[in-house]
């Protein structure tokens, strides 16, 4: 069971609801539960994570029980059930990436950001974590950054430096753009 502070109230903006409606239209009538995964992705993109009240709202929108949303959100690894940094660096840690140095890259990121896997930097900007195979083994080592999951391939320490610097810069210039 959960031990994370939850927001008191979550409001879905009308634009978000419009997007939900478009997704639900893809499925036959009465099968709106199929929209659950795409909607959770949208919720996470909007709020940065998937909170309990947000899941309750999704359940209400889809006319399903809240537990059905919790069951799904906790099964899939892409949904953050607690707040993480603004940019979450997800580094592939599976075999083929490790053959060409993914473990070193993760150590370097840990050292560079100064936080352990799953933690948030004090400025709230970054988190990192190892994830399982991202299906980009030929471009290994790789990492991805949500919510659009942009890929960064053939990673080196220099590329990590560059990436983190540019993310810092864009956030400083325009905090709205992630």
């Amino acid at each position, binding site marked *: 069971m959960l031990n994370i502070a939850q927001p008191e109230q979550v409001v879905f903006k009308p634009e978000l609801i419009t997007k939900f409606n478009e997704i639900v239209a893809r499925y036959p009538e009465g099968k709106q539960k199929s929209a659950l995964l795409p909607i959770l992705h949208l919720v996470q993109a909007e709020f940065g994570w998937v909170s*309990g009240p947000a899941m309750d709202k999704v359940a209400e929108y889809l006319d399903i029980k809240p*537990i059905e949303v919790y069951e799904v959100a906790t099964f899939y690894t892409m949904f953050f059930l607690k707040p993480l940094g603004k940019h979450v660096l997800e580094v592939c840690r599976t075999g083929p990436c490790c053959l060409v140095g993914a473990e070193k890259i993760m150590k370097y990121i840990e050292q560079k950001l100064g936080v352990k896997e799953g933690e948030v930097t004090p400025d709230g900007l970054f988190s990192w974590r190892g994830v399982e195979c991202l299906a980009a083994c030929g471009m290994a080592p790789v990492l991805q950054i949500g919510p659009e999951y942009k890929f960064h391939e053939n990673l080196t320490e220099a590329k990590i430096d560059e990436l983190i610097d540019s993310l810092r810069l864009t956030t400083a210039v325009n905090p709205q753009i992630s």
Partner: protein
Amino acid sequence: MSEKVKVSIDGITIEVEPGTSILNAARIIGGDIVPPAMCYYSKLEGSGGKCRTCLVKVSKGSEKDPRPMPKLVASCRTAVMDGMEVQNITSPEVKEARKGVVEMLLINHPLDCPVCDQAGECHLQDLGYEHGSEATRYEFERRTFDRIDIGDKIQLHMTRCILCYRCVYVADQLTEKREHGILGRGDASEISTYIEKAIENDFSGNVIDVCPVGALTDKTFRFKQRVWFTKPVEAHRDCPTCTGKVSLWYKGEDVIRVTARKDVYGEVEDFICNTCRFEKKNTNDWIIDGPRQISNRSVISSNHYEQLAPPPVVRKNLALQAANKEEFERATKH
């Protein structure tokens, strides 16, 4: 009516309705050839297939297609075909696989039977005795979870859970709104409500009866008594919500627990309501039908219904005989 199909299980042939599962066909035959089942529950639609204890070998698929099935199959979810030949206890492969499954079910189980209310009527205990090894080969820390209360009557002790999903099916099929479910994935899966919630429903108490282990227990019975020191009787009452047919578990003059009536496979005859289960604990709430028949293989029977059968060591040792004097006297009185 459609024609019956013939199936042979461990060499015993029987005719059953088409669509019957191998497990149910075996239960019709009865006895030692019935595969154990930890997750299947005939009264819960969709249950079964998960624990893998009921695996059997299909050595002949059917009369039409006699090829054997390539893998062991879950007997609870495989329908019989006409002419099918099944091996359960006559297949070394099945015995070996089952032993493996039992070992897997036990590696993360806390084995806290001495303090578990389910002890004595626990299916995992039975399974371990009958099909398991004496020692474990698992040398790592076992998985643990915090105990949680689902309301004031039911306690969830997830550490003991074998993830049979029965309680989830109960909530889906017996109640309007399911509040608990399976959260997480893999060996981190747990039964939970995610955000602390009481399960409020007339039939929620049935999750206790369907739980094959001590993961869901009756808080009103918690630590009151070992089940083998209680006296079960069958009773009924005129209940507006359920059939009111229950088993009462006595200690002395007091009803200390009420459960549904269970059959030889541990399945309830009728699901009962929470009022019957939790609120009616006086003898005068009930009409007693008679003593409950308990299998002589059950530890519950050892004190009340069977002649005392002392282990050989007691028979040989005078000091032990003296220590058990009372029991011997009681046994000869009946």
